[in-house]
């Protein structure tokens, strides 16, 4: 049943007996209440902000000392008081991330993004969480939003760091082309920073772009003739580009400048061995070519022999014959060096084919042989 408020049959109607004095006092009371409420609210907001700030700063101190659990409690108290603070929310999210409480951190970061979708730091945090959770598509999207988002300070530096982290994601997903594209963007972003450019060049090498990497290394070397890392990088790039002489020179310089660089030293040894073994290098005499081709055939035979031994397989008759031929090479004096070189190279390639068919890719020291044979195939 409804309550009926149709106009009453009898009795006074609204306002007809309200005295002006009553009405005046009502509006005075409202005005007074408005003023009091205004003052109270102002004082309240100020006190509230101050309390929240104190909690936040206490949280920052605790976080600085590595006491994240207590810091989270303080940040939580600050947020409970002023719920619209992105700063407090971000601090809380960061502390949660440090404790691997990723789901909770994610919730707070998404709230930051709801009010500020272009926040660079929130997008970066979310991207990191996604990357840690293996959600690489989301991570990539997050990093891109972070790169093009808003950063209140250190804008360029933060964007650069976000790009580097995005590269890790590309590395995990095997997106080499995307990684290289990102590295080119980074190069444009750091035209005058040799340290960053060196880092970028090394990454270009890692992601299979030795040509631009070599350019960058060369540029660094020109600017700083004592930069061992640049020489090492350049040497590696030239090695990958099969320019072994240039690689050897650069790597020698790198080792000279930094004797402790074992990677450069090892690569130098590879380059030396290739240059010592490769019979196709220009400027060699036929005798030297013959000597190298014979050594190459023997090395291939040794590799094939090791392969059969490790796989506990007996070579076929044809293979055995090839192995025997290679072992008979030392001490032979050919009548025609040119033909002999061709024969030796053919023998070496056959033996190498056997080895590859039997044992697959060449590990460790045999990768040098693989390179030489790849050159021969070219």
């Amino acid at each position: 049943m409804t309550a009926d408020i149709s106009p009453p049959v009898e009795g006074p109607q609204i306002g007809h007996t309200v005295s002006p004095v009553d009405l005046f006092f009502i509006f005075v009371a409202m005005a007074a209440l408005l003023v009091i409420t205004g003052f109270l609210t102002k004082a309240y907001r100020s006190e509230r902000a101050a309390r929240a700030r104190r909690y936040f700063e206490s949280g920052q101190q605790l976080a600085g000392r590595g006491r994240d659990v207590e810091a989270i409690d303080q940040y939580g108290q600050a947020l409970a008081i002023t719920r619209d603070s992105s700063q407090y929310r971000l601090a809380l999210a960061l502390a949660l991330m440090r404790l691997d409480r990723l789901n909770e951190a994610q919730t707070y970061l998404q709230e930051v993004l709801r009010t500020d979708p272009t926040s660079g730091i929130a997008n970066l945090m979310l991207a990191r969480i996604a990357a840690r959770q293996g959600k690489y598509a989301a991570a990539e999207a997050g990093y891109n939003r972070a790169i093009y988002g808003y950063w209140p300070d250190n804008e360029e530096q933060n964007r650069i760091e976000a790009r580097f982290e995005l590269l890790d994601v590309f590395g995990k997903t095997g997106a080499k082309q995307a990684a290289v594209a990102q590295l080119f963007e980074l190069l444009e972003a750091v035209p005058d920073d040799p340290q960053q450019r060196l880092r970028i060049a090394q990454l270009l090498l890692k992601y299979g772009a030795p040509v631009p990497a070599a350019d960058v290394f060369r540029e660094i070397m020109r600017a700083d003739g004592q930069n061992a890392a640049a020489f090492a990088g350049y040497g590696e790039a030239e090695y990958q580009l099969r320019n072994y002489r240039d690689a050897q020179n650069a790597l020698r310089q790198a080792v000279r400048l930094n004797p402790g660089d074992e990677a450069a030293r090892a690569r130098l040894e590879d380059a030396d061995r290739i240059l010592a073994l490769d019979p196709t290098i220009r400027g060699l005499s036929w005798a030297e070519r013959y000597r190298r081709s014979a050594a190459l055939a023997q090395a291939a035979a040794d590799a094939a022999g090791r392969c059969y031994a490790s796989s506990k397989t007996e070579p076929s008759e044809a293979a055995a014959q090839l192995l025997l031929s290679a072992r008979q090479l030392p001490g032979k004096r050919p009548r025609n060096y040119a033909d002999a070189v061709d024969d030796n190279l053919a023998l070496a390639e056959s033996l190498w084919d056997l080895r590859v068919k039997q044992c697959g890719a060449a590990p460790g020291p045999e990768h040098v042989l693989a390179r030489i044979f790849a050159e021969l195939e070219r």
Partner: protein
Amino acid sequence: MATLLTPGPRLARLRGFSLLTDGQRFLLLSILIGIFSGLLVVCFHIATDLVSWFLLSAHQHPLRTLLSPALGGLAAVLMVRFLFRAAKGSGVNDTKAAIYISDGYVPFSTVIGKFVTCSISIGAGNSLGPEDPSLHMGAGVASLLGRVFHLTRDRMRLIAPVGAAAGLAAAFNTPITGVLFVIEEVVAGWSAGVLGSIVLSAVSAVVVARWFLGNEPLFLVPQFELTHLSELAVYAFTGVVGGLLSALFIRLVGDLRDRLHRLPYWMAYVNPLAAGLLVGVAGLWLPEVMGAGYPAVDSALHDRFPWHTLLTLGLVKMIVTLLCFSAGTPGGMFAPTLFTGAMIGGGIGALAQHYWPAPTSGPSAYVLVGMGTFFAGVFRAPMTSVFMVFEVSASYVIILPVMIANTISYLISRRIQRTPFFQMVARKEGLDLPSLEEQREALPLRVEEAMSPAGACVLTADMSVGRALEEMRRRGVRDCLIASSRGSWSAVRITEVEAALAEGKGQEILGAALPLEPLPRLYPDVPLDSALRLLGSHPVLPVSSRARPHKLVGSLTLADVHRTYGISGPETGRE
């Protein structure tokens, strides 16, 4: 006498006051009520926080945590006892009492009393909420303004709910919830005038509250989506648990209040002290259960608690709220029910995330849904509970699980515990207020259950008076319907026909001999008490089909109604 509001005719025309109807002036008064209520609620909110900051803060001495609720509760009870007696009861029940008992009177001392005592008791950490006191203060302000404006009795009865809606809406920052709750729980229905007033006051109050305290919803809620359809079963289970717990809660409140009221009168001071001490003990271990508890609900919405903590918080909160409320500590129940439901729901959600065979949403979704289930089960306001969750979260995605869980909770609670919470509390306080839930559930009797089938006495207007009298005597009836050619119906009594015959009009047709006034039509679905109002003026009424209004499907007399209501006595209309 001319006043500011009733100037002389010329001035009135100039100022346009006479253009406003009484109803329109009532609506303007509603806005005024909303503004006052909003301002009061803002001040109350600030006062409660200030008390809380003063008495309770993080890393304080444990003794302070232990004693604050006890001393705050005792101080509040003493003030109610000696200074503000009218501030004693529940705001909802007092508002209903204003409608049904005291013609809209809510003493203004209630407003001051609730403001002071509840800001102390809640700020000191007692497990109670600020919404019911806000509702009560709104009702008090509205009653005062109603008296100042010398409202009629009918309007005075309705002024308290107008203020109550404003107070509740401002406290929750949810205008729809404030309006719906008052309609569902206090006034039990609405007409255009009631709805307009309540809406205007609620909106005005919320505008004022947001102006001063900001636009943020009560909770900042993460985004949700339904992960898998089978999840609805988990939400349904949340509703089942919510319903069972809410029924248990209501029963425990009733039992404990009975036990405490049987104690000597001086225990009325010891009870809140003891309840507060127990809250303090719980607060040393779980500080989240002290006060209204909204920050903890916010943390739960952000997945900050593991499942065992969530369930523990929900159960402990239920217990401490039960203690505080039953002990008579001033304060409301809305916030604690939201807290309890949120935590229990979150605990279920966290468990489901581990053990449910299909993917489920995070616990925070269940926190949100759980919030409404306990509320729906305790207060039996299902529509309010659904809209409340929607309003506090500003998330529509969650609406489907909320509807399912809340409805289940409501039905289960209703099944197990027939008496709703507020009615139970009212009876304990010596008031017998109508249960609006029971009114809603009562099946109304309709015309179709009482009417006589078509074929009862029906004459035509072109029938002669003599022939009509023969027919009526043959059927043994005192009243007959007369069908006119225009498709309308009239009625005639046998005494009128006999008089016409005596006047020598026996050969005349009924239409000429007697004044035949068209009768109002009834339809089978019309409530019987609406039909009863018309039977006072007419001895018999036609019942038509809505699809074919000229087709008679039956007739209704007072005797038919009496028979249906089970009233025995001399029947009319039949000899």
